[in-house]
């Protein structure tokens, strides 16, 4: 690595060094409590998968360049040069961590390994050594924000073709638009994903609740966040914020996508609208008597996987359980306490990397598969597309014999007048 590249990367590193990050980098006592907390280590016990070990790779570079001890006595401070080889280690550490933050809830100091890994990811972006597919996906999202006209008509035509399937789930009232798009004065902007499956059930539930809603032109997912690039993350986020402001909505409702929800909720700053997950909105509709569900539709034992970015990392824990009280007659918890739930093993961009990460995703989530199997459930539902894909892969790989479902689809299927 040439000196100019190294200096550029160190500038990126420095930009990440706020008070919280310095605390995380300077506090670890190596107590080892986080060791068993990581699903990767618990499934594949190798030192490189210990949370504190991953963090140590970043910490040593920090010591070398940002602490006087490391600068003057490198051998004493266990400091490390930022080299091509260090980048390879950073890649291995960052892209075997799903950012689930289970280690953080066990750590006595609350050290956030995901946050430390965000330095590793940013250095990889700076060195053009990140998984290029994630950057490509982020750039596609940004291009959509820059030129709505290149897809507007095709998107609207595609939405129109879904109407019959929405009406089959819930008959709209005469004169109502089945899937409103670009509706000025709507109360709620729903931000979906690319698939029809993330639009059809949601639309049926909004219409059943008589919501004044509109569908976003943009997809909720933020690949800028997956790849750890703050600039791209912001550009992707701003498309939705801009649309919400233009339409004057009071609420932005994020579909079943954990990262999308957490990014919108925690990074959009003060806005004239509130941010909700679709799970929160569905719970509210039930509480307010705006929709009714038939629990007899789901008599089989059922369990729910809390997506890390929605539950542990954004606090949506009670709402799915409240929905499930109205939806299923034999509900079984996965973990004694939801914040200690095992990650599905597909976060941090691993699912988006597809086949390339499949073997690792399956091996590193053995504890998740065992946790699910122990419940004896026949149905496993969740509220994140990424988790759904990973859990479906686990179901197949470990022959769990489950049906893996989206919670929002179950709500739509159980609607009664």
């Amino acid at each position, binding site marked *: 690595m040439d000196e100019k590249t190294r200096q550029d990367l160190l500038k990126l590193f420095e930009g990440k060094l706020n008070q919280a990050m310095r605390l995380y980098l300077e506090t670890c006592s190596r107590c080892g409590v986080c060791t068993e907390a990581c699903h990767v280590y618990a499934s594949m016990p190798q030192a490189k998968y210990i949370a504190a070990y991953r963090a140590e790779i970043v910490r040593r570079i920090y010591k070398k360049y940002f602490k006087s001890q490391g600068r003057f006595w490198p051998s004493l401070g266990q400091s490390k040069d930022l080299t091509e080889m260090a980048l390879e280690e950073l890649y291995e550490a960052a892209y075997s961590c799903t950012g689930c933050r289970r280690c953080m809830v066990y750590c006595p100091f609350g050290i956030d390994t995901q946050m430390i890994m965000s330095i590793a990811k940013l250095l990889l972006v700076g060195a053009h050594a990140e998984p290029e597919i994630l950057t490509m996906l982020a750039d*596609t999202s940004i*291009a959509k924000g820059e030129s709505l006209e290149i897809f507007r008509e095709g*998107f609207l035509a*595609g939405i129109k073709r879904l109407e019959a399937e929405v009406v089959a789930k819930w008959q709209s009232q005469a004169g109502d638009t089945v899937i409103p798009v670009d509706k000025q004065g709507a109360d709620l902007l729903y931000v979906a994903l690319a698939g029809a499956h993330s639009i059809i059930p949601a639309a049926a539930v909004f219409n059943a609740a008589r919501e004044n809603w509109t569908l976003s032109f943009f997809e909720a997912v933020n690949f800028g966040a997956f790849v750890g690039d703050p600039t791209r993350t912001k550009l992707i986020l701003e498309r939705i914020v801009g649309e919400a402001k233009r339409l004057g909505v009071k609420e932005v409702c994020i579909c079943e996508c954990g990262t999308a929800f957490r990014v919108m909720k925690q990074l959009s700053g003060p806005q004239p609208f509130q941010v909700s997950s679709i799970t929160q909105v569905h719970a509210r509709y039930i509480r307010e008597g705006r929709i009714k569900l038939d629990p007899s539709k789901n008599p089989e034992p059922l369990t729910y996987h809390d997506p890390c970015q929605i539950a542990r990392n954004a606090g949506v824990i009670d709402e799915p359980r409240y929905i499930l009280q109205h939806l299923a007659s034999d509900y079984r918890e996965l973990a004694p306490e939801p914040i200690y739930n095992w990650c599905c093993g597909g976060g941090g961009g691993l699912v988006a990397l597809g086949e390339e990460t499949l073997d690792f995703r399956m091996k590193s989530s053995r504890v998740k598969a065992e946790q699910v199997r122990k419940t004896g459930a026949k149905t496993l539902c969740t509220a994140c597309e990424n988790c759904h894909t990973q859990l479906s892969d686990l179901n197949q790989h470990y022959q769990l014999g489950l049906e893996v479902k989206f919670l929002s689809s179950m709500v739509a299927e159980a609607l009664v007048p």
Partner: protein
Amino acid sequence: MSQTIKADKTLDLKGLPCPMPVVKVSKGIKEVQVGQVLMAETSDPGALADFPAWAKTSGNEILDTVQEGNTVKFYIQRKA
């Protein structure tokens, strides 16, 4: 126009989870030669929106889009 376009590779991308439509189209285009055509079929509105944006950023060209029932076929030429 599409009647005259011959696809060198075809991909059925209907109903795939996020972000597989764009991931697969992006991998698929690398499996044809420069100048050759990939036909990608989708029924998902988000993919209909994503493909033109992906083509723009990746420098490939959508030669035609053809609707057949609920699905749309994109004819994409590899440019580089």
